[in-house]
């Protein structure tokens, strides 16, 4: 039978492929990796990015072995349990995912928007769900957690809204990047009006996020703190910044935006390896500006569509999510911090193949280690 012959030939190719792997230099390696991906694709065996073995070989070169991993869960947008079960189920799914990771990640970063309307019951429910995580959890605040009481309850439950910590030689910074001008005092808004105004993504009167500005002196204080915190860190120390909003300008009408992004980027410019991980955009989105790699996190609650304009050039768009599948386009993920100080991001999309976006992909201007294009049809 010709199909048997094909099968035989394929197995032979595979054997040859694995035999030659250890002998390759980087250039040859890429060639083979691509050829093998093509073989795999042509045989309809498995998607090319499931070729994990290839990475194990590559990892021996140039400090690109994984030093440690951390996981993230973001944008759970919880209502009270009696009102909305589906977002609770989604958050619990992420917790189960993380607890099932083997090896376990060193810690979990929560990316903000734990609650939908900043209410005490929502935040407490979130804390209860996240307390089931086995690894240590670091918390970040989102605008949905903040604008009912300007952070009062959140701070009571989780502590400081901005801080830094060191882990295995990497300096981590968590920011409160959702500070905006006071739009509520003059308009005499109730706390819930203020919250709903902020919670509406397509609010035509919405105010842009900042790190170092905003109402009162809360932003100014944070920016001063950030300057002083970075002053203590050597230029060679890898830096990972967590912000809820993207620390760049993507699409202002939906507040996929940080108004003083350039000022924050300027503070990060002197450092050799800088990675920014942000929430808020609910989609695979990645970007590089100067020396900074940016990766957006997935939401567990729902995926945002890509904005009509302004999408960063290096982003590979996920196909439009299937509205009939609650979990399509949502998920959680992990970040690999490499020995050379770079960070790769893995999007664990719940209804799709996982998507790995490497620092090398971003730093080569999209020429190397290109993540596979989505193969799922659009709806």
């Amino acid at each position, binding site marked *: 039978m010709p199909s048997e012959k094909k099968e035989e030939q394929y197995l032979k190719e595979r054997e040859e492929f694995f035999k030659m792997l250890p002998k390759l230099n980087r250039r040859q390696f890429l060639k083979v990796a691509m050829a093998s991906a093509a073989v795999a694709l042509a045989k309809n065996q498995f998607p090319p990015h499931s070729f994990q073995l290839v990475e194990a070989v590559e990892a021996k070169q140039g400090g690109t072995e994984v030093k440690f991993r951390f996981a993230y869960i973001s944008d759970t947008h919880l209502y009270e349990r009696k009102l909305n079960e589906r977002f609770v189920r989604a958050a619990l799914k992420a917790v189960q995912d993380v607890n099932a990771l083997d090896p376990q990640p060193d810690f979990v970063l929560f990316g903000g928007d734990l609650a939908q309307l900043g209410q005490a019951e929502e935040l407490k429910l979130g804390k209860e769900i996240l307390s089931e995580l086995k690894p240590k959890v670091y918390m970040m605040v989102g605008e949905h957690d903040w604008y009912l009481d300007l952070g009062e309850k959140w701070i009571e439950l989780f502590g400081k809204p901005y801080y830094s910590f060191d882990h295995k030689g990497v300096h981590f910074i968590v920011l409160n990047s959702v500070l905006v001008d006071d739009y509520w005092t003059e308009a005499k808004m109730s706390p819930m009006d203020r919250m709903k105004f902020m919670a509406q*993504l397509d609010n035509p009167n919405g105010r842009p996020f900042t790190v170092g500005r905003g109402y009162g002196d809360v932003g100014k204080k944070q920016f001063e703190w950030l300057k002083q915190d970075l002053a203590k860190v050597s230029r060679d120390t890898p830096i990972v910044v967590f912000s809820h909003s993207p620390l760049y300008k993507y699409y202002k009408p939906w507040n996929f935006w940080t108004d003083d992004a350039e000022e924050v980027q300027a503070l990060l410019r002197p450092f050799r390896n800088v990675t920014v991980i942000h929430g808020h955009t609910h989609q695979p989105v990645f970007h590089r500006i100067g020396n900074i790699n940016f990766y957006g996190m997935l939401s567990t609650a729902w995926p945002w569509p890509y904005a*009509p304009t302004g999408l960063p050039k290096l982003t590979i768009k996920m196909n439009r999510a299937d509205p009939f599948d609650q979990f399509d386009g949502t998920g959680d993920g992990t970040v690999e911090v490499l020995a050379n100080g770079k960070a790769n991001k893995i999007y664990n999309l719940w209804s799709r193949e996982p998507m790995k976006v490497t620092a090398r992909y971003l730093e080569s201007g999209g020429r190397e280690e290109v993540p596979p294009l989505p193969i799922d049809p659009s709806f």
Partner: protein
Amino acid sequence: MKKTFILLAVFLVSAFFNTTNDLSAIESEGDKKTEKKVITACDGETQVVLNDVAKDEVMSREKAQEVAAMLMATYQQQKKYQSTKFTRRDSLIWDRELKAMIEEGYKWFHDPSLGTNGISCDMCHPDAVDTHPETYPKFQIQLKRIALLRDMINWCIENPMEGKPLKEDDPRMKAMEAYIIWARAKQDPRPEGKILNPGKR
């Protein structure tokens, strides 16, 4: 273009068969021997008086076509002065009504009370994006049948929003359709988005 053609065809037909009408009373009063042919258009008002055709004469096809063209020209000339003039007041009413309908739709699109779990349409569709109203009716793969935009609105109300579907002629449904179509036409940066022109005659 098509409309003009049909109108022309109607004129042609009337030019052939209208030969016995006697609406030409005034014209024919002066000289009964050389009664002129008068052709009336199907609106019953527009007329042309033919000096070179006798009342009972059957015109050639070419002549009839020429007459039809004259009728059309006369009709259009008259229409310029007689037909409805849109006043500033009219435009203000239209604009206000359209705006009110769209605003009503915007309100419901952002209102979780259509469902039961706090979710509103805008949470997945900011500025009504990814609703692609111009593609309906279409075969909806997941439903395995042809769906209209309103079927999908109701699907979202019933499923992600866990609410009760609206009746097809529910004013909230109509308003949301108006908002979605308007948003699509206004905000879609792609050229094919421009085929929608809501609010314009």
